[in-house]
């Protein structure tokens, strides 16, 4: 196994938008990342065909907020609503991009949400998505779209959620695997030198040896690093550590936990900070070692 390489140039960040609070949070994080990496920001709004199909039904109806009044519904009305929603999202994106002086684009695509996003993800270096969309109940903690994308082969997936209070630290899960080494280097690339520290959540048998390894990997970077030992078999141990550190982002190489899909999904549901997932397509493949986060 060769040394991990993170030479992954971030040129385009795709942000999936549906105007839900979490998707707005995803936009904010994507803008921040794009500004730091001088990347293009690509907004994507999907006109969900499921909704249009429902609107086609002669007996379909809408119970509108907040008065709980019944409103007529048909395809034309639904299309109009989707267009309005799209326009609103576009304006939000444009304003945010303008403030940050970013190159940006916006696209509205009609289709099934997850498949459209999967397709679009192939043309982007990072995909940012809200943790919960409109159609998801908050009891779910993570929406079906986010969950499906998390288990796909998207190289870098940012699952965002509404603003959390914290001390700006970035947390990264490290188990000594090449994937976790890539995650560590990605995290180090994201941290603002001198302003943002990282906490490495160490999960190895030989703790001291791992620390030496990490120090070697991070050598030459002006970043304040803290270490915290976590129990690989205890999900709560990881969650507690993230919370205690006041982290605003947790970086995970998804392959690390894919061995146990249920545990991974449970972790996705319960972690309370935004997540950056390094998917299978990212640079920890032994055969693909030429990527680097250029920040």
């Amino acid at each position, binding site marked *: 196994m060769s040394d991990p390489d993170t030479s992954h140039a971030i040129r385009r960040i795709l942000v999936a938008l549906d105007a839900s609070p979490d998707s707005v949070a995803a936009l904010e994080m994507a803008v921040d990342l794009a500004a730091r990496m001088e990347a293009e920001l690509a907004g994507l709004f999907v006109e969900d065909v499921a909704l249009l199909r*429902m609107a086609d039904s002669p007996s379909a109806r809408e119970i509108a907020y907040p008065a709980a009044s019944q409103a007529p519904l048909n395809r034309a009305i639904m299309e109009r609503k989707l267009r309005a*929603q799209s326009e609103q999202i576009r304006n939000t994106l444009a304003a945010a991009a303008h403030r940050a002086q970013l190159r940006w684009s916006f696209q509205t695509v009609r289709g099934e949400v997850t498949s459209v996003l999967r397709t679009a993800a192939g043309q982007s270096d990072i995909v940012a998505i809200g943790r919960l969309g409109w*159609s998801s*109940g908050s009891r779910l903690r993570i929406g079906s779209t986010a969950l499906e994308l998390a288990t796909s082969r998207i190289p870098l997936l940012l699952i965002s959620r509404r603003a959390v209070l914290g001390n700006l630290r970035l947390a990264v899960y490290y188990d000594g695997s090449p994937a976790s080494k890539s995650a560590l280097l990605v995290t180090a690339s994201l941290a603002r030198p001198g302003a943002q520290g990282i906490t490495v959540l160490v999960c190895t048998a030989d703790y001291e040896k791992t620390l030496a390894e990490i120090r070697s990997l991070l050598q030459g970077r002006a970043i304040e690093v803290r270490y915290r030992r976590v129990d690989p078999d205890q999900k709560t141990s990881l969650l507690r550590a993230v919370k205690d550190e006041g982290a605003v982002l947790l970086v995970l190489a998804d392959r690390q936990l894919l061995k146990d899909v249920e545990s991974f999904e449970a972790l996705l549901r319960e972690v309370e900070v935004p997540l950056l997932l390094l998917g299978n397509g990212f640079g920890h493949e032994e055969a693909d070692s030429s990527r680097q986060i250029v920040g």
Partner: protein
Amino acid sequence: MVTAVDTKCLPPEALFRRCDPAEFKFNTSAELEDLTEFVGQERALEAVRFGVGIRRQGFNLYLLGPAGTGKYASVSAFLQKRAAQEPPADDWCYINNFDSPETPHALKLPPGRGVLLRDDVHRLIDHLRSAIPSAFESESYRARKQVVEQELKDRQEKAFEEIQREAGEKDVALLRTPTGWILAPTRNREVISPEAFEQLPEPEHQRIEAAMSETQQKLQAVLHQVPKWQQEVREKIRALNDEVAAFAVGHSIEDLRKKHADLPEVVGFLDRIQQDVIANVDEFLTPPDNPLAALMGMFLPHAPKGPAFFRRYQVNVLVDHSANHGAPVVYEDHPTYQNLVGEIEYIAQMGALSTDFNLIRPGALHRANGGYLILDAYKLLVQPYAWDALKRVLQSSQIRIESLGQMLSLVSTVSLEPEAIPLNVKVVLVGERLLYYLLSSLDTEFGELFKVAADFEERMERNADSHLLYARLIGTIARQDALLPFDRGAVGRVIEQSSRLAGDAQKVLAHRRTLADLLREADYWAREAARPAVTAEDVQRAIDAQIHRADRLRDRLLEEFLHGTILVDTQGERVGQVNGLSVIQLADFAFGHPSRITARIRLGRGEVIDIEREVELSGPIHSKGVLILSGFLGARYAPDHPLSLSASLVFEQSYGAVEGDSASSAELYALLSALSGLPIQQSLAVTGSVNQHGQIQAIGGVNEKIEGFFDLCRNRGTLDGQGVLIPSSNIRHLMLRRDVVEAVQAGKFHVYAVETIDQGIEILTGIPAGERDASGRFPEGSVNQRVETRLIELAQKRLAAGRRILTETQL
């Protein structure tokens, strides 16, 4: 014939009362003790002591007297001394009225506690602005709040999930969108297409429709419940916030409560702060920047002293007596309405005016509350509304700040009605006598509010004791003003000049400002001459310089006399012509000059015509003096027959108004001369008023008048027995210039004191006036006999003329 003249001629020593330096035992004024009392003002100071001492409503003081008599200095010194023995006044603050912000509360505190409380509360709020956010950022608070919020979410989601589940079982899809919930029929969890739906049998249609209606009703029921659940959550969060805030605030405020436990009002105020902070805890959690302003790209200036909201907790210390050791003594030199009773200021924000209790500013009455307030009466009266405001405050014994803008409806904006502050102050007005008398007669409330008048003298008795006191006063002023010491000769000369300025040889001036000015000028000349102490020569130079600076007009007038433009004889004799004397007052400088007065007689009906009066150049007193002459003439010379003359009197070459009766004796002399045909010596000038009995009465400005005639005579080249007739009652006022006294001493000039017209006419004509003998006749050849004879002739001529006219009429 002229023996009478010699007996009335005043000796030189009567013309000037010298202050002999030998009577002083000191060499210079530096050896004398300071004078702490104000000399010559015993009456006024006694009134001040009484007025200040009596603690009853309305016993405020009015110090009356001319400016410069030391009214303010004396009362200020007296009050400072007395106030130092009295307890310091209380501090006064304005604090927010949390129930009704437009009526702020007044808070009385012991001296020095106002600033202490203000700083304590300021620190408290500063602390709370960090402590409260910290408490609300704590993990425990966030966890508890999240539990509450999650409870709502779970409740809602559970209800919706239940509906969704039930709907799904009945082939109804329920999907959430940004605008609401969408319901649609499904089969096998797929939405039925319109075509498939049409092909469904009618019973299936009805079943689905019923299921959708049922789902809709349930959904609507839950949606109607949502606001109620949200309200419950808000209340729970509010209760949680209150609990957290109470903990954060209570701990901090408790220390202050203990610190100010001796002041129940302050403890009550702290309680209200605690309640208000808890009720408004959101304000403590808001970032300091105004997000609205930032959004709009506008700059909203913060109100003074910090963000607007927290101003409600501030303590506005209106009056701070922390540095005072006695009762306050305040002099307000610009007693406008606002400076007197305070004002409410406004700040402009976004073009609108706003205010709060922090913008209440104190007036002089607030600062003087518990002590003494000194005001200049004239300055007070010329300020609009100030006098009325002062009276209102004194009558009600409380200070109520009212905005003039509001009162006059000039400002149409929200204003305050601050709680009135009880007033306990002694007001001392300082002003001219005229103002006092005008206020007394025109303002009925004045007498009720200013019951004590302290009348300051301009002059004081002159004797050996007062000479020494005066010397000490000179020494005191010299020390206070860092002047050179005055040697005894200088002190004597100052006293002499002071006596001259007082216009009385038996008095000295108690006008402190005039005295101080003379001393400063004498000091200047002494320093110019490089002398270690001021001498009599320096004082004389100062006096001469003062006169020289002011006497331009006198010199011009004298030139007119000398050039003959104005006709006044100083030699020879003239019938019906006499030199009268008058005084011109120019600011602080007065000088005398002669005027030719002439009288012409003809047959008439007994009237004495004052030409000045006829052309309305005569003042009422002058007219009165002239009318007295008719009374004198008629009673003395024509008791039994009609006064049948027509006399005209005139001030020759007088082109302005004539006032005063000091020329009435001169006019009578001119009349007597005209009637008797006896000439009057033009080397003499006359002053003095006369009554109907022929008695000469005192006049003012005697020194200036004598000197005025003296100067004219001397400047014409020779002094050869000229002189002036003055009333005997003016002898005590004589403080003549040294050159006049020296001329008298040399016999070149004379000052005659006369008591009656007879004495005067004898001197002026050299002929005895004459008294009636036992038969009622005047001696032959006397002035009076000639006058009487002439009047009888006139009466007879008038009688004859009357008969002729009657006869001609009958014919």
